[in-house]
């Protein structure tokens, strides 16, 4: 009797697990699927502001907060960079634990030097990374970031970019902590980061 009961409860537990997995999967944004290798983000290698090669290994021991955008982006990128600048201010002394990174998805127009000038308008602690199409495509793929060129009608070859706009947090061990929506209030994001820092340090 108790055995049947056990089996029944096991079935119930299985059903609950199955349904919640499906629900979670459904609710999950396909654009936020990050490729993970042995629990860590896939390596990327990009070009920094001094034309030097910068890989993900460079940031081991530090938290990374990554955003993929482009300098010709008129609306969402400046808005998100303002959020990051505000988060850095809110973090105060703890900001040294975090490396905010802006990776261009428009390497055709965004040179590493231009990225640096652009980001200095928000907070010079935000690091701009670029490189050729191939490097950028690999980095974007590692984070499941989509982007595509959108030609503008009657503009003589001008274009803007459609792109994923999540913020990706990577812990000091190179593990993806989680993606955040870009319109999270800066104060809230700073607080969430503080909690993450603390939890990680207590490990």
């Amino acid at each position, binding site marked *: 009797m108790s055995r049947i009961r056990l089996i029944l409860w096991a079935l119930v537990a299985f059903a609950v697990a199955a349904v919640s997995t499906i629900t979670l999967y459904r609710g999950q944004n396909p654009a936020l699927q990050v490729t993970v290798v042995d629990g860590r983000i896939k390596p990327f290698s990009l070009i920094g502001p001094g034309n030097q090669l910068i890989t993900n290994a460079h940031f081991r021991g530090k938290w990374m907060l990554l955003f993929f955008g482009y300098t*010709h982006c008129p609306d969402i990128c400046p808005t998100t960079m303002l959020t990051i*600048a505000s988060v850095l201010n809110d973090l105060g002394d703890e900001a040294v634990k975090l490396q905010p990174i802006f990776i261009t998805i428009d390497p055709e127009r965004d040179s590493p030097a231009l990225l640096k000038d652009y980001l200095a308008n928000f907070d010079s602690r935000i690091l701009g990374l670029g490189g050729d199409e191939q490097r950028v495509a690999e980095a974007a793929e590692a984070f499941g970031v*989509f982007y595509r060129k*959108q030609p503008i009608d009657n*503009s003589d070859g*001008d274009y*803007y970019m459609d792109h*994923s706009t999540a913020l990706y947090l990577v812990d000091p061990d190179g593990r993806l902590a989680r993606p955040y929506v870009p*319109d999270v209030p800066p104060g809230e994001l700073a607080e969430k980061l503080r909690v993450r820092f603390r939890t990680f340090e207590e490990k």
Partner: protein
Amino acid sequence: MFKWCEIKAACAVVLVLILAANPAFAADISVSQAWMRATIGAGGNSAAYMTIANAGSAADVLTGVTTPVAGMADVHQTVEDNGMMKMEAVPKLEIPAGGSVSLSPGGYHVMVMQVGKKLTAGDTVPMTLTFERAGAVDIDVPVVPLGASGPG
């Protein structure tokens, strides 16, 4: 049967009635809190934000924007499509009667493309908004630093 002056008087009354019934004068549309971000160099893009209010008793529609500083200017909306942000043209933006529409970061904005010269904080950009009823409305948009979040 009717005297000529009677016909003229009747026409005048009708005309006054038509004008009174048609509430969309340019004066009904007012634009406030306009601002746009500086660009980092010539040929850049920017976005202009503002609040458009319609004091009239009929809805009006914003159908176009022009500015001498840019090759193109269009009303756009930033929309999310499966985690990807896209900009969509908004060829007709309705301003409800007695209401207002706000163009703000992450939503509606005037996309200003191919800006001939670098826009610097402190500059003022003239812009002409065209409405179905109110016609052309000229505004001056102050340029704020790229890292600003509002009209300062």
